[in-house]
């Protein structure tokens, strides 16, 4: 157990985090130079204030027209993304590790709250899955990749929840949790999950075109 643990929080964690961080930096540099080479007629219209306006406006639940039109999806999406980021970052058990390995700490969530938030993430994943299977708008454009991504995203939370409550084999579950979490991080730059950072830029571009050139709202 100690050997496995040592491996997953040691070399494997460095690899996972390394791919995540370096991958994002690489991807951003690659995309920027590609945009400079091929999309200059778009890049030239980028505007910081309109970019921020667009990102800000779309970050408010039920503000954009389409958020209003799809209340269930809006609730699920916002709940999902807020919890998805807040739980791993502010979970006490995670901060304890940061403290132990790097001597840094920050505010933490009460375990009880994190527990409910984890359930919210899992519930949102179930909602997304049901929607993907039943709502034709989504089903028509769904491929196996979308299911894999959904499973990938849900797995650290499911295993984390089971490990926290020590349901099934704890030792197996905690290792699975760490591995799936690292896999999740490592795959972010190279899958649809790259919307985590690229989405900000496409949003910014739409905001710039609509705000600066078209003089209309993009929401």
């Amino acid at each position, binding site marked *: *157990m*100690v050997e496995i643990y*040592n491996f997953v929080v040691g070399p494997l964690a460095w690899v996972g985090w390394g791919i995540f961080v370096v991958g994002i930096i690489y991807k951003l540099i690659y995309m920027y130079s590609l945009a400079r080479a091929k999309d200059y007629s778009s890049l030239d219209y980028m505007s910081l204030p309109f970019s921020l306006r667009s990102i800000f406006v779309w970050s408010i639940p039920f503000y954009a027209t389409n958020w209003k039109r799809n209340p269930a999806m809006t609730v699920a999406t916002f709940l999902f993304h807020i919890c998805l980021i807040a739980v791993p970052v502010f979970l006490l058990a995670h901060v304890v590790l940061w*403290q132990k390995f790097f001597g840094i700490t920050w505010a933490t969530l009460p375990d009880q709250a994190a527990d409910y938030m984890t359930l919210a993430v899992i519930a949102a994943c179930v909602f997304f899955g049901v929607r993907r299977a039943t709502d034709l708008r989504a089903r028509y454009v769904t491929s196996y990749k979308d299911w894999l991504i959904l499973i990938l995203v849900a797995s650290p939370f499911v295993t984390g929840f089971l490990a926290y409550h020590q349901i099934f084999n*704890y030792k197996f579950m905690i290792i699975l949790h760490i591995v799936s979490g690292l896999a999740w991080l490592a795959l972010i730059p190279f899958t649809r999950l790259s919307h985590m950072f690229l989405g900000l830029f496409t949003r910014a571009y739409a905001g710039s075109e609509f705000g600066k050139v078209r003089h209309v709202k993009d929401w």
Partner: protein
Amino acid sequence: MSKKPMILILAAAAVLLFLLPAFSQEDIKQLADPAFGQAQRPAAVFDHDAHNEKAAIDGCLPCHHQGVEEGRFVEGDPVKCADCHEVKTAEGTPLMLAYHKQCEDCHLEKKKGPVTCGECHKRP
């Protein structure tokens, strides 16, 4: 009325008084430091004697230490960790980290014993 029973009772009380720490030492089955206030997790499972026997630890070091000299712990009285390690502190090792490091570092070094959260903070 004889004084005997009184003496016996006093003697028993004295024995009890002196033996009490020894008994309670025996009784350490978990680490539930009241300094933390309301705990987020179940207390860490720790059977003091069984652990030391299994780990073949004779002295009180490295757990019970009093400061560091030349990179080594100096043995001290078996005082409470919270006496020195504060829960929240900018200097030194905070209490939770002290506990975690104390156990984990040794377990990792010896490649024995629990290292993940739930192995110590076991749910009842």
